[in-house]
């Protein structure tokens, strides 16, 4: 039987753990609200952007001289996987789920004889990918200094990816992130960003309004496509931010509840052994008295 002092220390330690997880949960809840707000604020831009993109792509999409960001390089050999995760752990399966999806996809591509290159965003993703796919890693973008992801951060990532594309380093780029469904469910998602996937856009082809373009379609498209990559990455970063906080919130909620259960169990055990000690002492006294 563990002695009373040990049990008491144990209870005290679990209690302080519970305080920490409770605090983390509340912090995550506050951050989640902010992250959701940010995602909400960014939605109008993404929606409109995609609407314009759909119109443009529909009008130049199949032209032979469409920009390479839209039409692709004509090959499908080298795939760049941009794996976006959190900078911190303690958020349940959030990072692991994204990494798992990316690994599955990478294994699938390798089995098909394609070349895989990996860029990671966020420390946790780098650690997870390094174990099995370290040799494919071509870059890492650190966001640990960033308090609140802004469009500039997305632009920096997009610039990195586009630079590699212009250098002919890859044919297809995909981003991996977690889509925020609600607090308890975040769905690891893969999205292709290069070449731009037109089929994913909602095509509201109302041909009755014919658009003028200034400058011409090609020039606008050349201007918009790099922006489209940044926009997609920005949207993914925001979704990721909300997902991370949601995942952390539910993970910490579970941890708090577990700690509570543990304290209850330990307290019962403590009381039992305390009573056992008292009973023992009584028996000793009584048997001592009887012996006289």
């Amino acid at each position, binding site marked *: 039987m563990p002695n009373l002092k040990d049990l008491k220390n144990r209870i005290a330690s679990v209690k302080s753990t519970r305080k920490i997880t409770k605090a983390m949960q509340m912090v995550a809840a506050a951050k989640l609200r902010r992250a959701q707000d940010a995602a909400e604020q960014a939605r109008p*831009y993404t929606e409109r952007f995609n609407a314009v993109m759909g119109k443009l792509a529909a009008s130049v999409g199949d032209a032979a001289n469409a920009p390479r960001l839209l039409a692709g390089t004509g090959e499908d050999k080298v795939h760049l996987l941009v794996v976006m995760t959190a900078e911190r752990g303690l958020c349940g399966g959030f990072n692991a789920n994204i990494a798992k999806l990316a690994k599955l996809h990478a294994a699938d591509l390798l089995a098909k004889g394609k070349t895989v290159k990996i860029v990671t965003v966020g420390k946790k993703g780098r650690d997870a990918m390094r174990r099995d796919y370290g040799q494919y890693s071509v870059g890492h973008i650190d966001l640990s200094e960033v308090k609140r992801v802004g469009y500039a951060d997305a632009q920096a990532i997009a610039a990195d990816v586009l630079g590699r594309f212009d250098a002919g380093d890859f044919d297809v780029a995909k981003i991996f992130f977690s889509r925020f469904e609600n607090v308890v469910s975040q769905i690891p998602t893969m999205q292709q960003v290069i070449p731009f996937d037109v089929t994913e856009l909602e095509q509201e082809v109302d041909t009755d309004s014919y658009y003028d373009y200034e400058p011409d379609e090609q020039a*606008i498209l050349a201007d918009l496509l790099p922006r489209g990559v940044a926009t997609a990455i920005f949207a993914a970063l925001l979704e990721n931010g909300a997902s991370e906080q949601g995942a952390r919130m539910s993970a910490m909620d579970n941890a708090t509840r577990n700690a509570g259960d543990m304290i209850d169990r330990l307290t019962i055990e403590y009381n039992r052994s305390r009573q056992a000690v008292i009973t023992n002492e009584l028996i000793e006294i009584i048997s001592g008295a009887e012996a006289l």
Partner: protein
Amino acid sequence: MADTVQFDLVSPERLLASVAAHEVSIPGAEGDLTAMADHAPLITTLRPGIVRVSGPSGEKEYVVTGGFAEINGTSVSVLAEQAVAREDMTKEAYQTMVNAATDKLANAQDKYVNEPGPVDEAAKLLADMVAIGDHIGLSSN
């Protein structure tokens, strides 16, 4: 004929304005233009400049640093790279923008020694930025 258009100004980070407007002046890449109700459908890219909206609720100006605009008979949507209401524009923020444009020009001059295209574009960007400063009285000199 409706005499107002629905004007939306969005940046990637947020929706800045969504109001009814009589006319909207936009710094288009190939020249400024003013959109009123029943404007022909048009998609244009923007250069850095001032978007001016006048509507039933008064006149308002926004500083944009580029992006594009979609105009049709009933609505004007400006999707700006960065957008700030003119009264929120501070000297520091303006200076950051000018510095970014200056850096870009320096980079372009380093990188494309024999290609005037990108250098000219960067120079134009800087000139546009300076013009904004002159307009709103925050010029760096």
